[in-house]
């Protein structure tokens, strides 16, 4: 899936901006959808310090401009 496309090699400024914006996002990989029972403490450990395995995506529910994750 990953093409040999990089920020520096792309001629379009719009695409370079997008690549910079999404650079910090986690890679696509198979994820588990199995229901998992967690405590509040376990959820807290998974709170963002950058991205985590169980990352958040709620910021885009309404498409808000200043997403709370590093971009």
């Amino acid at each position: 899936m990953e093409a040999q496309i990089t920020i520096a090699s792309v001629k379009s400024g719009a695409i370079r901006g997008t690549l910079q914006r999404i650079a910090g996002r986690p890679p696509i990989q198979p994820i588990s959808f199995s229901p998992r029972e967690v405590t509040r403490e376990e959820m807290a450990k998974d709170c963002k310090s950058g991205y985590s395995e169980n990352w958040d995506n709620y910021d885009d529910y309404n498409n808000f401009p200043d997403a709370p994750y590093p971009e």
Partner: protein
Amino acid sequence: MNGKETIVLTAPMRIIVPVIKVVGDLCNMRCSYCFYHLRDQTVGKVMSSPLLEKFVREYLEIFPGEICLNWHGGEPLLAGIRFFEEIVEFEKKYNCEKRLIRNTVQTNGTLITEKWASFFRRYEFGVGVSVDGAERTHSRFRKMVGGKGSFLRTLHGIELLRSTGIEPAIIQTVTRSSTGVATARENFAFFFEELGIKQLGINFFHDVTRTNDDVVGESVASDDIVRLLKTYFEGWLARNDSHIRIREIDHLIGGVMGKRATTCNWSGSCTGFFCLDADGTVYPSCDRMSDRNDLVIGNLSKSPLREILNSRKRVDYAQKVNTVPSACHECKWLLACYNGCALHREESPVGRYLFCDARKALFEYVERRLTELTVPSQSIVT
């Protein structure tokens, strides 16, 4: 299913995110394509203060860390500014850990006043405004109760927001008639040249229930989506402004580049949300499913939120939604798509994504265009 102090997560998110319909279906507009069109939108009940307080208290007790509360409707501003002041008051009261609480509101923009704009600015609400495009597109379906188009009122609301320093994110609902190349170009120019927006998200209209006589023939098909997004993609490339973000293009490029998407219907996180209606009714995913009485998982006025979210009915629903059709496992783009929005699936919410063909075609198209726009000799890793 579990003990008192745990919660069952069913999506690849660390918490479950609420969408709160503060006035139920009540709205001051009658958009032809609204998914509440079968409901009586003339009556509404603002969520009671005790219910609001119960929700904020229990939600903050259950979920740690940064949280985001999405205040929706109907038209949420019909709840009145006092209701929103109460939201902030309850958040202060129960946010003992002083963590970041993000409030977002999705509005049609027509009720925004200087007072509302100042309030949103003061308390740092994210504001999303629904705009369908240039006036002839927007006002065709987005009408006030009396039948007049809402275009000027919505734009006035955006002006007021901007006067306080808020740059709203725009959500465009796209019907088939706005996917023609000429109309798409006109709307693209309106958004990015005339209105000067920087953030656009696109919702595609599909009359799932086929019960809406006002929009017969307006449901999009895969070809329509491909045509529109190719037009936007090429317009976006030509404009070449790195500050303009079109959500769907972000996800297409992200998918090609092997990055996970940030939106529910591209990342398989439908059941990472729940919907709380004004009367306390809780649904197991976002507000788009809140016309489905068969999906109700509880009522917050009668039960604790934890008990509702941990209910077997919610978990069973999640497992249905999260099970993709077998054909998806053969698809190159599965991990960038996850079978799309559960609302737009054959035999919703369990079947194949209705716009599967569009997704595949668009990923292939964007992959090819990125390759064409890349200088082959360089290979610097992002």
